[in-house]
């Protein structure tokens, strides 16, 4: 094992996959010098600020025997390439009757906490969950981002990787040797018996902090990180809720039609799990407002440890 940062782990995944696949191409408005010097400007291409065309270029490459990474940098810029992602990348395999694969990876950073205001702080993954044909990954640790990006770069579908801006400097252990993290395998970040907390991306770390805090009050929290939203590991989440009988979902995105809403629906629709519930499940999400600029307001609208902790205590005492 070695200790590296989240951003570094992502770079390693890209480098390793570039070495094993000569058909891999990187497209971004600015590219990493280290990657460019090792693999050349043909494969590591700087694009103008033209998100639609470089996402579309990734699709055209995919349909022509290549595989591209379209790095949008920030999720907010994805909206100007929405047609290419939603109407093209997601549907193209299906519309053409599965004639060919469209392997591509779209990377976006996302999330609040940098005081970058409404446009640059959005967490829009649930919008993409509503679009069949896309796979969605949400890595929360250096280990996960490296392993998930490597899987994404071997998957034959369009994959969107949502990488929280505040996680970039986070350090963690990563094996020296080759490994991947498969899609659809949630990770139980901490085992517990009283309540299941499903947390997404950065919220995994907030949930772990809360779990430690409420442990002092005798509440045993199981923290689950789904790691990929599409496909979603219903089984691990379901088994955990069956065991604990209580569920809190922590998701930084706006609450309405969120990933949290979907996870709770899946749980309560399941007869066997529903019967084992000891309390109504709860969502701890971003408030339904655009992310404000000024720190007191920004802190107020995204899930805090206090709100997570209150929800955990509430489901345990109801």
């Amino acid at each position, binding site marked *: 094992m070695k200790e590296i940062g989240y951003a570094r782990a992502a770079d390693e995944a890209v480098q390793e996959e570039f070495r094993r696949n000569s058909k891999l191409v990187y497209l971004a408005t600015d590219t990493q010098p280290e990657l460019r010097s090792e693999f050349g400007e043909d494969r590591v291409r700087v694009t103008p600020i033209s998100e639609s065309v470089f996402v579309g270029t990734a699709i055209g490459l995919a349909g022509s025997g290549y595989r591209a990474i379209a790095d949008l940098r920030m999720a907010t810029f994805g909206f100007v390439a929405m047609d290419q992602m939603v109407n093209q990348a997601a549907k193209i395999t299906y519309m*053409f009757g599965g004639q060919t694969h469209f392997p591509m990876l779209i990377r976006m950073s996302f999330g609040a906490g940098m005081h970058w205001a409404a446009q640059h702080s959005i967490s829009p993954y649930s919008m993409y969950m509503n679009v069949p044909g896309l796979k969605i990954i949400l890595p929360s640790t250096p280990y996960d981002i490296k392993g998930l990006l490597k899987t994404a770069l071997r998957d034959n579908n369009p994959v969107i990787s949502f990488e929280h801006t505040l996680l970039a400097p986070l350090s963690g252990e990563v094996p020296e040797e080759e490994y991947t993290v498969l899609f659809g395998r949630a990770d139980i970040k901490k085992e517990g018996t009283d309540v299941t907390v499903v947390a997404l991306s950065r919220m995994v770390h907030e949930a772990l902090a809360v779990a430690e805090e409420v442990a002092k009050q005798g509440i045993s929290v199981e923290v689950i990180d789904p790691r990929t939203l599409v496909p979603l590991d219903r089984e691990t989440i379901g088994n955990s809720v069956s065991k604990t009988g209580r569920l809190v979902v922590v998701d930084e995105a706006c609450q309405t039609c969120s990933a949290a809403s979907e996870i709770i629906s899946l749980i309560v629709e399941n007869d066997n799990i529903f019967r084992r519930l000891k309390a109504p499940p709860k969502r701890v999400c971003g408030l339904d407002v655009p992310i404000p600029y000024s720190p007191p307001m920004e802190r107020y609208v995204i899930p805090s440890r206090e709100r997570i902790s209150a929800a955990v205590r509430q489901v345990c005492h109801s």
Partner: protein
Amino acid sequence: MAIDNDTLVRLYRTMLTIRRFDERACQEVKNGAVPGLVHPYIGQEAVATGVCANLEEGDRIISNHRGHGHLIAKGADVRRMMAEIFGKKTGYCKGKGGSMHIADFSIGILGANGIVGAGLPIATGAALAAKLDGKGKIAVVFFGDGACQEGEFQEAMNLASIWRLPLLFACENNMYGVNTVYTYAIAGGDLVKRALAYDMPTISVDGNDVIAVCEAAKSAIDRIRGGRGPYFIEFKTYRWSGHFVPPAIPDLRPKEELEVWKKRCPIVRFERKLLEDGIITPPELQKIERQVMELIEEAVTYARESPLPAPEDALADVYSA
């Protein structure tokens, strides 16, 4: 440039196949055999035919909503096309795409597209793949005058130019985006000027003259294959039908305009030329007509007799393995 007689006859046959295919597809819409709609290519046959005549194996095309002509000219199987339009399991896309989304990746057709302008970025990727492959192959994107007002047009033209991609921008200016005339929609009214602004060689040609189309496309494609970057051609043409069939939107174009353009029918003009130049005889023309009609009839029979997909087939092909 002299085009040999066999090629001339082949051009004629291709144009006629496109014409008869779309006439029949429109008829089948009226007959109730087509669940959705078709955007007929009738009137524009010379463009797809003349451009695709210059393509070779390994070249790729990206088509648009009015795509039947491009597909036939690139060599698609009319039986599987018709079956797709009929919504049958044996169609190119197993009934999942219909008229607007036909593709045949095995022969370099990367698909028709229902979103105006959306094929341009995808074509940029196909051209980048050809450049990276380094085998002298190219990509062609077909789009209309309407697509030129989309942001993706500017993005693709610019990127193709700065990367010197082997891409032919084949713009079919049929004068109308649905009912909006291009002189209103296009500032300055001149698409060639736009290409020049992207530092791209360009020419405007009569899109109803298959020889002019073929020659212009050849000189552009030769240049593109030589690694000298993208090329933009405006083909001036006209669509004979309303925007799509069955007509849900009224056709507001001046009626007399259609009469003028029908006199410039690309097929009739070419037929006259072939006869005048002694390249073909009337009996030979009749024979081609008969063979084309047989082919189309066979396609319709194939489509009609093919099974519908099972409802649950809807669940397959969302993801690739």
